[in-house]
């Protein structure tokens, strides 16, 4: 573990990503301390430019809401949606991939057909269908994003299980009389997990982007301070007050970049030999 950490910290890009991610997490945590008021409430005269009024660092939007407050609270929404949706996707992916890889045969065939079906459907379109059917409050949107993102982790888990399932330690477990469930989740899964966890960073980056796109189209929950919502509301005044859309977009960019860099750094630290070819 210490070795892993040292390898991670030696990589400047990974270090930068880690610091960036910590800053964003800190911003999310201190949001209520810096801005005790509801970020979606009226704060002042609408459409003030950033720093025009020292009270509003990033200015105000078309409805007179403080943009800085929305950015701070938006970090909470993005990270929370990213984290929960990713957990859902990884959990579904692990169960399906583990079952398919461990049992093989008909189970594998059937589960992989379903996975393929999900991969054939454009996942943003599937997300639109889910939102159209189940509505767009924040819980539904988060679950829906998790539900469209599981096929890739499932394939990855399956591939890991395929290489592990005939190893000696698994045969030893069989000889000891362990049940399938115990072998899958207690014995093989911990060995199959590292690449899946690293891949989770990709899922999380995509989940944050999916939510922001949904919010931008006004199809996410309008009652939370989401960055995507802010960009969408800034569209009407793009011609003159472009900063309303520009600032939250930059926040999304930084967050996704941080998550990606951390994921890449973890990947490099776990596979130091591959670093030359795959970064």
């Amino acid at each position: 573990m210490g070795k892993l950490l040292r390898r991670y910290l030696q990589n400047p890009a990974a270090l930068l990503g880690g610091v960036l991610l910590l800053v964003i997490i800190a911003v999310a945590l201190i949001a209520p301390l810096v801005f005790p008021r509801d970020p979606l409430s009226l704060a002042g005269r609408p459409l003030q430019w950033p720093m025009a009024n020292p009270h509003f660092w990033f200015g105000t939007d078309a409805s007179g809401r403080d943009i800085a407050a929305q950015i701070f609270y938006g970090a909470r929404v993005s990270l929370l949606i990213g984290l929960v949706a990713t957990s859902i996707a990884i959990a579904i992916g692990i169960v399906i991939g583990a079952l398919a890889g461990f049992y093989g045969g008909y189970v594998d065939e059937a589960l992989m057909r379903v996975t393929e079906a999900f991969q054939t459907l454009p996942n943003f379109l599937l997300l639109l269908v889910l939102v159209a059917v189940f509505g767009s409050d924040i819980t539904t949107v988060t679950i829906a994003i998790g539900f469209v993102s599981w096929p890739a982790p499932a394939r990855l888990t399956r591939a890991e299980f395929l290489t592990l399932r005939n190893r000696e330690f698994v045969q030893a477990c069989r000889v000891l009389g362990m049940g399938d469930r115990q072998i899958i989740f207690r014995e093989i899964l911990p060995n199959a997990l590292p690449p899946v966890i690293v891949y989770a960073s990709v899922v999380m980056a995509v989940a944050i982007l999916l939510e922001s796109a949904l919010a931008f189209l006004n199809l996410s929950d309008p009652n939370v301070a989401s960055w995507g919502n802010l960009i969408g509301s800034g569209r009407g005044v793009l011609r003159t007050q472009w900063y309303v859309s520009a600032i939250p977009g930059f926040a999304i960019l930084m967050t996704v970049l941080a998550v990606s860099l951390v994921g890449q750094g973890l990947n490099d630290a776990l596979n130091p030999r591959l670093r030359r070819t795959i970064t």
Partner: protein
Amino acid sequence: MNILLLALRRLAASLPTLLIILAGLFLLLQLAPGDTVDALMAQIGGGDPATAKELRHYYGLDISALSQLARYFLRLIEFDLGQSAIYGKPVASVIAERLPVTLLLMSTSLCLAFAGGTALGILAARNIDRWPDTLISTVGLIFYSTPSFWFGLMGIVLFAITFGWLPAGGFEEVGSGLTGLARVIDIAHHLVLPVVTLALIFLATYLRIMRASMLEVRGLDFVRTARAKGLGETAIVIRHALRNALLPMVTLVGLQAGTMLGGSVVVESVFALPGLGRLAYESVVQRDLNTLLGIVFVSALLVIAVNFIVDLVYGQLDPRIAAGR
């Protein structure tokens, strides 16, 4: 025509996938609160239960879910996607009107991302760990992390509003009466921003795969042989390494076809392009589930078609695949 057979076999294998998708979508529709008749009754301002019952019979909603599913499949085989509630036309014809714009947007962006990714990937691989490589990889990662709609909006601010070089949206100048070449140029002018927006997001993925693939091929024996023969570096890259390095890139086209369709929903909304994606957005807003399901069905067909073409190209690039089976 061995490769054609192989590709056709893969096409046939995607049939069950399509069935799963359709059944899944149908189930989802069953979960939606209220049915077509409820929506209709609400539209005409309510009515007595007898009328509702009659309407349900008319729309075939009074039979079991399973027979409804069977009927739905039969209708899809005839490409009858039902009636669009907001346009008052068959869904199939609404989609057919919008499809060309999306296809044009997607194929142009794909070509741009593919060509740009290949060139930049080669450049990065040839300068590995020196500044061009670092620069290209960093810029690629930034593009990858950018939300496409924001990219589009900033493009509008910069190139349409500040400089006034490009139009801010639309597919062509409405009512300009342009024909022939003038119209083509007008459309191209309108499509510059949307195409670049969509392409830049995917460029990053292509360039990373190309770079990794080039690095892998570079160390193989046949490249060393080519170098030993005295070939120049450019000839080695273009004639020998590139063809082999392209295989993963072609695979990626098939894998990303769906993602690209999803991306065009957002991009079309930003630039007000009358394409399939914008239609999907409108039908979500208006709760026109029939149209939405039709779009998803057509998109799935499109993805399957792209993968079929990818299989064919694969055989062209690597004769071993056609001969192997």
